[in-house]
């Protein structure tokens, strides 16, 4: 090879052809361009005209130059020019190519493989045997073979998600024999054992290192800090300010992996570490499965999250909240205080908190749950939930678990409980006995000032002894526990507030809750905990940071996991133990990165430098392009580009010129697509067209609705009644209802209707379970049901008549608050009309509404109490309002009411009741506001 600066020629003797270029110049000059034949009538005028120059029209010098250049480019091209030919003095012995093959290599592994290929190609040219070794998985036996054979094995060479182990390397270095030269493709990270191996390799021959300086990130495992997730990352080299995007990934509720949150890791200039705190909602946080640095495809930039990131979710449920109760008396106050720092609290009604799938549900003094909720709770406990119940006056007063053991109570209870040390009882308040060794509370010290003055008492029972986990000094059970399915039920026999005992005021309370694994602290992987356990790898990570499920790897002893440092025997990934999963990450919590340094005697070169670039194709393409340009110019000079075909010729030539330009192809990045693909999958199933039509019908305007009873006559009357009421509303008020709808409780959505009119017949069917769930939901969310027994309340208190008994049966599973006969100052009496009684077809009956809160008295001179209650969820009466409201198609009353004018007056009043009722439903307690009092007083005075 003949060198000219950075340019080498494979066939330099061809360059001799350049000598002939001047001769070519002369020849080209001598040859005139070919003539064009033209038809021209004026030729007669041309006859006899001589050319001024005897010489042929010369080809212009620049066209000649162009041609000469084209020929020169062709000669150069065929001479085989190569840019940056590798002219390295080549050794002759075997060549060992060593790559670190750690996760830091994963990002640009293809470049490394192509570099190895280039090295192998060079070795092939010089006929050296070669071998390739990955330091993360050193081959047991090194065999130098034909470079082609080695190149064949390159595709199976993949980086590993761990770092080379110094011990393994030392052992491997000891097995090397013979003389060979080494090329070391370093991943650029400093680590132990590198110098030792370098020394060992240098014993066998020269060592050359290929290493590129580049930014490498390592993400450490996430941890909890001050209620937020703290994620820190290391980098090398610590140069200027760099921002890296941190992505938290996890499953969405539909089970599709998504990006749940992002944050930015800002490395300050010169700082090797950066940290960011992620403040995520608990539901989101508990779903995070991994953190990663965006755009870094290596196991080091991925950190798997295991159970340690989860915070337990505790649901606090109490019975009907008494708004007037002082906060310190609230049964949940002390629980809240004790738990708030360590767990995520959810509060609300049971059906609201169950979908949040809490780890623990606390029921404070709740005796009886609605039937369906009871079943739901039982399912939840059996699936592994922990139900913690506290006693209280209500539990003591109820007959729950009295005669037979309730599934959700650990013991049977004696009636009434007991009081000790009170004003009406003998004895002193009891103190706690030390905890037994079997008790989960064993080891907690019992402070002497914890006393119990009242408690519920367990019935003696053969199973009682095994269920007691804490008792009083006199042996009375204080805390009992019973396993249910996978879960357990725990009953604390005192209240959760300080009413019955001072336990909630003491530090013991917190300790006990902790022991019950309610406020479990983040789990630790201390060696002591892990000793003797075996963890099975469930998912392992490759060097690119991709997880894949695996069930073929053997279990890993807990001590090995505690030791950290993943290796071939313990690849990074998720390991499942008995009750939890542990993450083994490629980067440890305290790992830092540093750039690798090499002794000065070692030659270090970049990865991309010294690439051989053959220029033959480019030179020939240039020659071809020049010839094409020459063609165009020659045509133009000869005048052939003018005229009709000229433009076409130019286009054709330009197209030819454009052809050989190589197409730049965008590299396809396949890695991006995976996570986004599933994002569409979680769409909700669309409602059916019929449902949609119903919803549109019901929500286009206010629609009054009645419950279909199955009795055609009753249903027709109800529909006619609501039609009449709707007409009256349209005539007299700004409410303009659409025609009423009869609804089927099982099928139709209730949420669209402000109120339901429900006539009760003696043989009305009991609604189904789903219907009850819907009704309870409806009542909780502000719906209102007007129950009409249509019996004129003949039996008083609604209990004596068949309809009344049916109503009781129907309403039993409904979540109906305490009710009371409507007070005189109820807001229903003045939402639109001022009413005193509420007649329908009958006028005598009492109607019942939600009971008002106690303790409010009317201020002096005010006709009403200051009650800011909600819309009553039920109105119960028996006045057969629909019959009084009912109109036929012409708008005339359908059924007779009363006698003569008195009857008409009664019908009018029943309409007024209807108007007031709908107003009440739609405007709430607006008219109860004292602002209206002066106006109302004025009208009352008239």
């Amino acid at each position, binding site marked *: 090879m003949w060198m000219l600066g950075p340019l080498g020629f494979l066939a330099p003797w061809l360059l001799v052809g350049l000598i002939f270029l001047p001769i070519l110049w002369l020849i080209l000059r001598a040859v005139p361009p070919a003539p064009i034949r033209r*038809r021209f*009538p004026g030729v*007669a005028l*041309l006859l006899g*005209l001589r*050319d001024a120059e005897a010489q042929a029209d010369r080809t212009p010098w620049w066209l000649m130059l162009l041609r000469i250049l084209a020929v020169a480019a062709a000669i150069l091209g065929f001479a085989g020019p190569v840019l940056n030919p590798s002219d390295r003095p080549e050794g002759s012995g075997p060549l060992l190519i060593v790559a670190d093959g750690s996760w830091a290599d994963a990002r640009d592994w293809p470049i490394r493989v192509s570099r190895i290929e280039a090295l192998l190609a060079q070795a092939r040219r010089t006929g050296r045997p070669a071998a390739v070794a990955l330091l993360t998985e050193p081959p047991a036996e090194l065999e130098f073979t034909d470079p082609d054979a080695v190149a064949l094995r390159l595709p199976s060479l993949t980086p590993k998600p761990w770092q080379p182990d110094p011990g393994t390397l030392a052992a491997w270095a000891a097995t090397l024999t013979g003389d060979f030269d080494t090329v070391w493709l370093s991943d650029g990270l400093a680590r132990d054992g590198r110098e030792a191996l370098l020394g060992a390799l240098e014993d066998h021959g020269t060592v050359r290192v290929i290493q590129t300086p580049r930014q490498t990130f390592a993400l450490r495992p996430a941890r909890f800090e001050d209620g937020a997730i703290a994620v820190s990352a290391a980098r090398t080299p610590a140069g200027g300010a760099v921002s890296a995007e941190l992505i938290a990934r996890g499953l969405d509720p539909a089970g599709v992996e998504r990006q749940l949150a992002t944050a930015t890791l800002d490395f300050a200039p010169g700082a090797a570490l950066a940290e960011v705190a992620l403040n995520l909602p608990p539901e989101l946080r508990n779903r995070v499965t991994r953190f990663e640095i965006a755009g870094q495809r290596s196991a080091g930039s991925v950190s798997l999250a295991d159970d340690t990131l989860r915070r337990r979710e505790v649901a606090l449920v109490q019975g009907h909240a008494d708004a007037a109760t002082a906060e310190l008396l609230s049964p949940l106050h002390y629980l809240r205080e004790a738990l708030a720092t360590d767990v995520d609290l959810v509060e609300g009604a049971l059906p609201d908190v169950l979908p949040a799938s809490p780890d623990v549900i606390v029921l404070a003094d709740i005796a009886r749950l609605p039937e369906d909720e009871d079943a739901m709770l039982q399912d939840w406990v059996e699936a592994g939930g922990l139900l913690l119940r506290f006693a209280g006056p209500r539990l003591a007063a109820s007959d729950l678990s009295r005669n037979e053991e309730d599934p959700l109570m650990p013991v049977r209870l004696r009636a009434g409980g007991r009081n000790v040390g009170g004003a009406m009882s003998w004895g002193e308040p009891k103190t706690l006995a030390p905890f037994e060794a079997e008790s989960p509370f064993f080891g907690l010290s019992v402070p002497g000032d914890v006393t119990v003055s009242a408690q519920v008492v367990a019935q003696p029972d053969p199973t009682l002894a095994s269920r007691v986990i804490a008792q009083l000094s006199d042996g009375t059970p204080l805390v009992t526990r019973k396993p249910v399915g996978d879960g357990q039920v725990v009953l604390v026999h005192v209240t959760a507030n300080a009413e019955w005992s001072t336990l909630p005021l003491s530090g013991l309370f917190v300790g006990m809750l902790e022991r019950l694994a309610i406020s479990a602290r983040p789990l630790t992987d201390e060696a002591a905990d892990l000793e003797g356990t075996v963890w099975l790898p469930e998912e392992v990570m490759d060097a690119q940071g991709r997880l894949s499920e695996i069930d073929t790897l053997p279990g890993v002893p807990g001590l090995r996991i505690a030791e950290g440092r993943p290796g071939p025997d313990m690849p990074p990934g998720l390991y499942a133990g008995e009750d939890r999963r542990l993450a083994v990450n490629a980067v440890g919590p305290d790992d830092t990165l540093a750039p690798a340094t090499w002794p000065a005697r070692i030659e270090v070169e970049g990865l991309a430098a010294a690439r051989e670039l053959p220029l033959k194709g480019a030179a020939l393409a240039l020659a071809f392009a020049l010839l094409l340009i020459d063609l165009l110019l020659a045509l133009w000079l*000869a005048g052939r580009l003018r005229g*009709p075909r000229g433009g076409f010729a130019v286009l054709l030539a330009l197209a030819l010129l454009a052809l050989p330009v190589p197409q730049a192809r965008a590299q396809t990045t396949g890695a991006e697509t995976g996570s986004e693909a599933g994002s569409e999958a979680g769409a909700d199933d669309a409602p059916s067209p019929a449902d949609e039509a119903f919803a549109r019908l019901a929500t286009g305007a206010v629609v009054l609705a009645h419950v279909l009873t199955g009795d055609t006559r009753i249903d027709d009357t109800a529909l006619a009644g609501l039609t009449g009421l709707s007409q009256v509303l349209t005539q007299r008020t700004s409410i303009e209802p659409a025609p009423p709808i009869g609804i089927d409780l099982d099928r139709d959505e209730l949420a669209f209707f402000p109120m339901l009119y429900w006539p009760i017949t003696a043989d009305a069917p009991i609604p189904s379970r789903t219907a009850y769930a819907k009704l309870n939901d409806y009542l909780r969310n502000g719906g209102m049901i007007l129950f009409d027994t249509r019996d004129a309340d003949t039996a008083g208190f609604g209990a004596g008549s068949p309809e009344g008994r049916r109503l009781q049966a129907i309403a039993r599973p409904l979540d109906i608050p305490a009710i009371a006969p409507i007070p005189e100052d109820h807001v229903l009496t003045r939402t639109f009309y001022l009413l005193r009684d509420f007649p329908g077809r009958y006028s005598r009956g009492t109607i019942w509404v939600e009971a008002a809160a106690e303790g409010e008295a009317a201020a002096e001179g005010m006709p009403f109490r200051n009650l800011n209650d909600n819309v009553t969820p039920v109105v119960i009466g028996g006045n057969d309002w629909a019959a009084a409201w009912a109109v036929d198609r012409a708008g005339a009353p359908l059924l007779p009411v009363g006698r003569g004018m008195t009857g008409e007056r009664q019908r009018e009043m029943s309409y007024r009741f209807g108007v007031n009722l709908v107003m009440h439903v739609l405007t709430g307690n607006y008219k109860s506001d004292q602002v209206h009092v002066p106006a109302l007083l004025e009208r009352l005075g008239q």
Partner: protein
Amino acid sequence: MSAAPIPETNDPVSLRARAEALAGALPPLLAAADQLAATVLMGEHGRRRPGAGSNFWQYRAAQPGDEARLIDWRRSGRADSTFVQEKEWQIAQSLVIWVDPSASMRFASDPRQPPKSDRARVLALAIAVLLAHGGERVGLAGLRLPPRRGRGQMLRMAELLAEDSPDEHGTPDTHGLPPLSRALFVSDFLGDPAPLEAALAQAAGRGVRGALLQVLDPAEEAFPYDGRTIFESMTGSTRHETLKAGDLRDRYLQRLAERKDLLAELARAAGWQFHTHHTGDSAASALLWLYGALERR
């Protein structure tokens, strides 16, 4: 426009074919000529002087010698003297047209432009239509179509004009040129000028006046050629090779100017008008010039 020469037989089928071939070519030519003539034709035009005719021209006082039957009694009744009604002079003139049918006229430098022969024929036919409207008799030179009037004459004329000649350059035929008539020669006049000179001399001898219309292609006027070129005449009989066509441009243009001067000189000597028309220009302007030149006294 070039109707293929079809052998003259009396075979009805052949006649029919010829007729259709002609009908295919002629109406467009005649229509184009009609359309062109319509741009100039404003209406019936008289001689603007008293004479024999049918249209009223003016009244004049009767003079001795006027026949009594010439007196317009209606006009004279309104005055004391007698008046004679004079008619506008409407005398028919003869126009003889020669259009060069030679090969050199079939040149067009650009396919978007008509060949010179096309333009020449359209112009000739248009002026014929125009003058025929004015009452003149129009015919073709060389005894092929003596001057007559009427629409049929136009059709026959169009038919004869559409014939091509294989000659390189055409020569005006002065046979049958009626004395004191008018003549129009349309050609590129790029051939030998001697026959034209002779024809003009003959015509002048018979008191014929007229116009020479030189139809040239824009390329013949501009000579936009360059490089090594072999120029061939349209039949290929004459050729001229040059190594640098661009060098010839000036001298060619000079020769062309000399030729135009010569033609103008010849025309002036014979009392004729001369004009050069380029196929790139509008035909209407040439027609206007023709009209003016042939109307000139």
